[in-house]
């Protein structure tokens, strides 16, 4: 009887330890966070900084082809324009006006100073006009592939 009790207790302990071990193995390390889902300008900045990029918030920027005023960010020293909308639906309505090569938006035709890259996430459209690979890398890691541009 005594042996049976000990075996039972041992079994309980083994089961308990295996459950704890499972939790231990799958638990995130203390202080770590899940990758941020970019929803707006604030979370974009957090995501970019989380990738190691320096980000400075600059002046407002307006584009006639977007209904909302944007913000010029300096990402790794490069100008990146962020346009934040009230809703994802509103953002998508405007993003849908951008031609696949980024050369036209609605009834506007644009001659860019460099290669245009359009990204979008939830409530924001992000425009980078340039060709710095390191900037493109951090933007893509935060936002996914561009939806328009060259």
């Amino acid at each position, binding site marked *: 009887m005594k042996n049976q009790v000990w075996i039972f207790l041992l079994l309980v302990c083994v089961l308990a330890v295996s459950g704890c071990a499972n939790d231990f193995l799958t638990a995130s390390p203390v202080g770590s966070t899940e990758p941020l889902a970019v929803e707006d300008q604030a979370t974009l900045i957090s995501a970019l900084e989380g990738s190691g990029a320096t980000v400075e918030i600059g002046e407002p*920027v*307006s*584009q*006639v082809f977007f209904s909302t005023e944007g913000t*010029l960010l300096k990402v790794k020293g490069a*100008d990146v*324009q962020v346009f934040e909308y009230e809703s994802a639906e509103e953002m998508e309505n405007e993003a849908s006006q951008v031609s696949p*090569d980024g*050369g*036209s938006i609605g*009834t*506007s*035709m*644009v*001659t*860019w*100073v*460099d*290669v*245009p890259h359009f990204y979008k996430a939830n409530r924001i459209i992000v*425009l980078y*006009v340039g060709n710095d690979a390191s900037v493109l890398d951090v933007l893509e890691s935060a936002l996914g592939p561009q939806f328009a541009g*060259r």
Partner: protein
Amino acid sequence: MHTQKARSVLVLAVIVMLAAFPFSAGADHAWGNYHWARTSNPANITVIDSMTADWDDNLDTAISDWSKSSVLDIAEEAGASDADTRSRCRAVKGKVRSCNYTYGNNGWLGLAQIWVRGSHITQGTAKMNDTYFSNPAYDETARQHVVCQEIGHDWGLGHQDESGADLNTCMDYADALDNPNPNTHDYAQLETIYSHLDNSTTIGAAPAGFENANVHAQENWGTKVHESANGRSAIFERDFGNGFKVFTFVVWAE
């Protein structure tokens, strides 16, 4: 002998046909279906010069180039060129306005906008961004390329090709801005776009009296064009010409 003669005749016939019907490759870069509505060709479109003196020769050349089209006849009109006018670059109904200004660090050298009613262009603007053009890296050829392209968009032309290839036209999408003029494909495309005629026009200002037409009094309603069987309602039409009309729908009080 006969075979050789037949071949010679065939070659001659092909040459004659090609001379009579020149092949126009790649004339398919219309900007959607956008075009100026007009009832006859050539389309007489006015470009308002709201540019500073350093851009005047570029605009003159662009207008001269586009006027070589068989379906366009472009007139240049002097416009205000103060900083406020150029910065706002307000469109004028029935015309195109060309402007230059330091529009800011927004990524574009030139921007063309059109206003449309369906597929008909009603007004347009072409903006050149001096924030970048003040950089001497943009030489005269680059300036000419951009103003030529932006004005060209206002006729309803898109880019000839969007691969970025240099196509020897100001309407290409290449990074090198080294083509100051349109080419034969641009003119061919314009002929295609403007090969039809419309029932009305969107070119030029509205006729005098149209925009502020006084239609309060019945005597200003024009001609009765329809009346209901019981006489309770009617439609009047006042024709200002060139497709500009005011319709008055009336339901009479008992």
